[in-house]
């Protein structure tokens, strides 16, 4: 027995030893052999600048598997919490029924009965009318839509003989779009009903408890009064949240589902196609699968995704640093007319983008002013083009980034100016006394402060640029056309972003909405993944803020 | 009338962080109670629970006989002065003070409001500023406006959350006196929060000393000064801090002695009687922590076995007295306050850094603490 105990004790101490020995290692490169890398603060300070840099890189890569594990654990915990939450609710519903009085039990069938019976007229009427409306809706309309949801309708438009008019007329039978739309609405409604029903049950339970302790229930008047006080948030949020639910959540849900259908605007025998059906993961396959027969989409997708990321990166950071530079220049002591310079630049924001961009695109067009001048000065040949079909794709891409700088700097300059004004002047003074020159002051004071404050902004700016429809569409329309990649989706260009491609597919001849949905979903996935990565690595960056 | 009773009050934040543990206190009507303690001890949290700005996790708070746990701040009949005054920047001083009156239902007439506001302004001496906006006032003036706003409605409890922290030292002294006068004048229960023990001692009828969410001691200023129940209170109250150091308590021939730093001092008088009643001293002596306030230490004329030999590190000239920062033989720092008036020139000359002196103290100023529990051997219950 004793021996076994000792043996069991050993593994613990071995683990402890391993942890302590892995910490101090001489060179960061040798570190890869250890699974955990952690320098104490003092050891870290001993490293040279180069070693610190390598240390961070090593930690970054070593951290990736752990990060995945953590993400997985987090997701698992989240699901577990949800599951437990649901189970808890169900248990609560059951218990309330068993322990509740007769008013509560009737409320399970007739919503609001409990409230009415206990004197809360207002709440009772609200609950009851909601239930009535729901039942009426389900009987007359909801049932139909739900039943059609799996098939999305079977009978398409057809010519049928109408006796009254004694001729053949077009009869539109099932409309898949309407089925999907109202089906989803019905599902929403059902969820809302379940939630309200659950609320009703909970109310009953709480009311019973309150009455049991001898206190009084809130009257209708008190309820209304609390809407401007403790429940004020409900009053304020009612309208905005409803708007978002109906006009953003529901359409997005709809479009996600469309990605799993073959909904398009194509005509069928002269009628717009009212009928479409579920196709499962087909569309995703088409877009992402290189091995499938139809590689046109996937090739296009790959190329466009690459450029979208490149564009977002350059657009964001060029504007950011140049905007900061301009802000610093204007803010410098000794520069007069600060307001004038700022106003001139800010003018660009005021003028609607479609005017400025459309005009600029015409300026750079093949028959526009700029090329005419350049040809006049013999700087370019006759076949030179910025955005036309003859253009070098990389020239177009570069021009787009440059023109975007023209659009974006004023805005960034404003933000940078605001932040710069907040940096305490004595930081700079103390640095000057310590002997820092201008560049050092910039990299060691200004830059870290700016990055710290605008970190989140950079991320949203990046994602925003990924979806920056205006600039690309108005300037180039996505061109010049990428002949090699233009597939069934119509002309795809070298400056097309995912989102302009989406637009073209939607507005194109066949309006393949399903492909558009798939692309939209993928854009979301890319944005979400990027955000998660950045947010997860940002805290660790903040902690080890400067190896500068 | 307007008593405040806190019973088993707890505040637990999300993530199981307990800010206030089991707070029990009975505040009498018209009493001036001060919550004092270091940052993060829970004093502001408790005040805010009384005000209704924080939810009470457990326990009950009763104001004037009514349990107020579920009541909104406005229904509790309290007034509050905030640390940063919280004056409405867009309103004039007059409107700032009138704000609570205008919210009262049934509505007060404009004449009544005018009378009340001007009365309060008169009392506080801010009548010339009534038409100004807060940003045109100095810190002290803003403070008075904040007090005015709190005074103008008839409240049962007057709450103040570190109101003097943002003022400079001179103004602080002046305002302290004014707050005492205010309390006398409006005859309401005051609950005052501060981290400054001087304010606590000068303002409070009773002081509640808190640490880490727990009450360390409740008592009048003289009680907490002379009879601290634990080491924390002893060191917190009084400036400079009380000297505390390990010592040995021995009992020989019925007489008590304390030995520290090689010196043995007798303990006689009241303290000896208390020791006899409360403390068991084993034959080999009892290890204790001894506390002596700097002002109670005296300079001995010449070295003797009952005086501790120390060397002066720093000599701070305070005007009518000198604060000597001394080191004992084993490098323990002590502080000794010496009044310079009664000393001759040559005696004063000796009080410079680098010199050696001897200090002694009487039994009646000694405080005895248990090194393990940190409780006072004489006064802890």
């Amino acid at each position, binding site marked *: 027995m004793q021996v076994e105990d000792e043996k069991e004790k050993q593994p613990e101490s071995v683990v402890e030893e391993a942890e302590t020995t892995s910490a101090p290692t001489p060179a960061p490169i040798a570190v890869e052999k250890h699974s955990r890398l952690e320098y104490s603060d003092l050891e870290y300070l001993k490293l040279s600048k180069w070693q610190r840099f390598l240390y961070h890189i090593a930690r970054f890569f070593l951290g990736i598997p752990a990060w995945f594990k953590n993400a997985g654990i987090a997701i698992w915990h989240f699901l577990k919490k949800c599951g437990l939450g649901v189970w808890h609710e169900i248990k609560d519903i059951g218990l309330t029924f068993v322990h509740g009085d007769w008013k509560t039990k009737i409320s399970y069938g007739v919503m609001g009965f409990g409230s009415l019976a206990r004197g809360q007229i207002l709440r009772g009427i609200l609950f009851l009318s909601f239930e009535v409306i729901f039942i009426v809706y389900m009987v007359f309309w909801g049932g139909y839509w739900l039943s059609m949801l799996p098939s999305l309708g079977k009978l398409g438009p057809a010519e049928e003989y109408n006796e009254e008019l004694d001729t053949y007329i077009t009869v539109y039978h099932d409309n898949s779009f309407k089925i999907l739309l109202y089906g989803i609405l019905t599902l929403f409604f059902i969820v809302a009903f379940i939630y309200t029903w659950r609320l009703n049950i909970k109310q009953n339970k709480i009311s019973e408890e309150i009455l049991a302790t001898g206190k009084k229930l809130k009257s209708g008047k008190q309820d209304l009064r609390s809407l401007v006080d403790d429940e004020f948030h409900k009053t304020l949020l009612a309208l905005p949240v409803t708007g978002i639910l109906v006009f953003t959540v529901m359409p997005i849900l709809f479009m996600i589902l469309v990605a799993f259908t073959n909904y398009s605007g194509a005509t069928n025998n002269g009628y717009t196609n009212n009928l479409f059906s579920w196709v499962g993961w087909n569309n995703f396959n088409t877009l992402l699968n290189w091995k499938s027969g139809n590689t046109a989409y996937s090739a296009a997708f790959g190329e466009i995704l690459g450029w979208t990321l490149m564009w977002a990166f350059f657009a964001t950071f060029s504007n950011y640093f140049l905007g900061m530079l301009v802000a610093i220049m204007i803010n410098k002591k000794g520069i007069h007319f600060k307001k004038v310079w700022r106003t001139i630049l800010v003018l660009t924001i005021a003028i609607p983008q479609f005017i400025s961009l459309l005009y600029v695109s015409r300026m750079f067009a093949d028959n526009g002013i700029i090329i005419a001048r350049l040809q006049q000065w013999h700087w370019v040949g006759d076949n030179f083009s910025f955005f036309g079909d003859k253009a070098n794709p990389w020239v177009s891409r570069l021009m787009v980034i440059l023109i975007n700088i023209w659009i974006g700097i004023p805005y960034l300059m404003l933000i940078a100016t605001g932040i710069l004004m907040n940096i305490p002047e004595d930081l700079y003074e103390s640095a000057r006394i310590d002997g820092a020159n201008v560049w050092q002051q910039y990299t060691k004071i200004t830059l870290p402060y700016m990055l710290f404050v605008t970190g989140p902004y950079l991320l949203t700016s990046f994602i925003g640029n990924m979806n920056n429809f205006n600039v690309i569409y108005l300037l180039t329309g996505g061109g010049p056309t990428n002949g090699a990649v233009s597939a069934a989706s119509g002309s795809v260009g070298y400056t097309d972003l995912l989102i302009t491609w989406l637009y073209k597919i939607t507005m194109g001849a066949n309006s393949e909405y399903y492909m558009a949905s798939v692309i939209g979903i993928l854009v979301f996935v890319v944005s979400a993944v990027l955000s998660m990565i950045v947010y997860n690595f940002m805290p660790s960056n903040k902690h080890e803020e400067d190896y500068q | 009338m307007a008593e405040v009773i806190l019973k088993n009050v707890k505040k637990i934040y999300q993530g199981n962080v307990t800010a206030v543990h089991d707070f029990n206190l009975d505040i009498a009507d018209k009493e001036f109670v001060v919550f004092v303690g270091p940052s993060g001890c829970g004093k502001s949290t408790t005040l805010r629970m009384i005000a209704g700005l924080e939810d009470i996790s457990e326990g009950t708070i009763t104001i004037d006989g009514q349990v107020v746990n579920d009541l909104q701040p406005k229904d509790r009949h309290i007034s509050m002065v905030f640390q940063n005054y919280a004056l409405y920047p867009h309103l004039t001083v007059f409107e700032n003070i009138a*704000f609570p009156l205008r919210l009262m239902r049934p509505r007060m007439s404009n004449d009544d409001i005018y009378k009340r506001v001007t009365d309060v302004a008169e009392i506080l001496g801010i009548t010339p500023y009534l038409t100004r906006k807060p940003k045109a006032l100095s810190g002290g003036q803003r403070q008075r406006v904040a007090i005015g706003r709190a005074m103008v409605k008839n409240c049962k409890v007057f709450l103040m959350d570190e109101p003097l922290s943002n003022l400079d030292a001179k103004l602080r002294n002046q305002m302290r006196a004014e707050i005492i006068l205010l309390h006398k004048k409006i005859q309401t229960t005051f609950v005052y929060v501060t981290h400054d023990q001087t304010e606590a001692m000068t303002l409070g009828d009773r002081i509640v000393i808190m640490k880490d969410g727990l009450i360390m001691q409740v008592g009048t200023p003289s009680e907490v000064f002379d009879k601290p129940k634990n080491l924390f209170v002893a060191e917190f109250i009084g400036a400079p801090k009380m000297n505390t150091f390990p010592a040995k308590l021995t009992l020989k021939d019925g007489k008590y002695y304390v030995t520290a730093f090689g010196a043995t001092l007798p303990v006689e008088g009241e303290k000896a009687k208390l020791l006899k009643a409360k403390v068991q001293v084993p034959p080999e002596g009892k290890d204790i922590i001894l506390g002596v306030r700097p002002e109670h230490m005296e300079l001995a004329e010449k070295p003797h076995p009952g005086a501790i030999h120390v060397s002066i590190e720093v000599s701070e000239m305070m005007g009518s007295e000198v604060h000597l920062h001394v080191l004992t033989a084993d490098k323990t720092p002590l502080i000794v306050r010496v009044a310079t008036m009664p000393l001759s020139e040559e005696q004063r000359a000796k009080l410079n850094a680098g010199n050696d002196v001897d200090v002694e103290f009487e039994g009646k100023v000694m405080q005895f603490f248990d090194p393990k529990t940190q409780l006072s051997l004489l006064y802890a219950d």
Partner: protein
Amino acid sequence: MEETKVTPTESVETTPVTNDMAFTPAPFKDKKHMGLKRKRVIGNVIIYIILVVMSIIWLFPFVCIVLQSFRCESTQPVGYIIPQKWGFDNYVNLFTKTNFPKWLTNTLIISVVTALVQTVIVLCMSYTLSRLRFKGRKFLMNFMLVLGMFPGMLTMIILYRVLADLGMTQANSIPGLILVYVASSGMGYYISKGFFDTLPKSLDEAARVDGATNAQVLTKVILPLSKPIVIYTLLTAFMGPWGDFVFARYVSFGTSSGMNVAVGLQDFLSTAGNTFKNYTMFCAGGVVVAVPITILFMLLQKYYVEGVTGGAVKG
């Protein structure tokens, strides 16, 4: 830029030793002083040059547009800037021969109504998220964050269908567009929320101790202090519809009387043939649209800048 080092010994040796040496510091100091100052002056001159060049580049397109709008000798895009014949023809044609006036009134109505309603909605949302604490607050913010990552274009089709079913498209597009613009505007709360976050919470608490309900705190204390952000939100909400050429086109779907200025003007340049005819009219239209907005923006610039620098940074 390195600081010029001046070694004292050099200058002392070059001047003869006289009693006047008592005042030596002057010339020697001047040299160092001038070195520094000269550096700064050169630096500033460079910056001024850069700024002037930038101003020219930034203003150039707009100057061109204005000039082109006065060109009367032809209506197609040309390779020179200064018109040969000046006149108001383009403007006259714009207002008499096209549907531009209708577009203008459409857009004006849309933007005014949108500005008012959207401001209310955004402020409701941002105030609630900033000052009020309630269950589900974090969830709501995260949810909207995630929702915002979906490209907005995706929802165009279905919104169009819904509007069509409700009869709010084509000729009747104004209410439809307004509805769509304001309904989801709550999601754009970041900057306003950032602003509200900068107001001290103790103001709320003082008001509540003084007897105000949460609603009264909003109306009596917070709103009076929120002038900058209210104006900022009004301004940005007003400017939005003037530039929407994607969704407005979809909703108006070919019916000219239902278009807004952006769609209409864009149509001017939609095909090569159209461009030939309408290029100068487009410029005129651009000026008519841009000038009032720019003036409005300039007048309220102070608030816009405050909103961007204050709220955007903290948000």
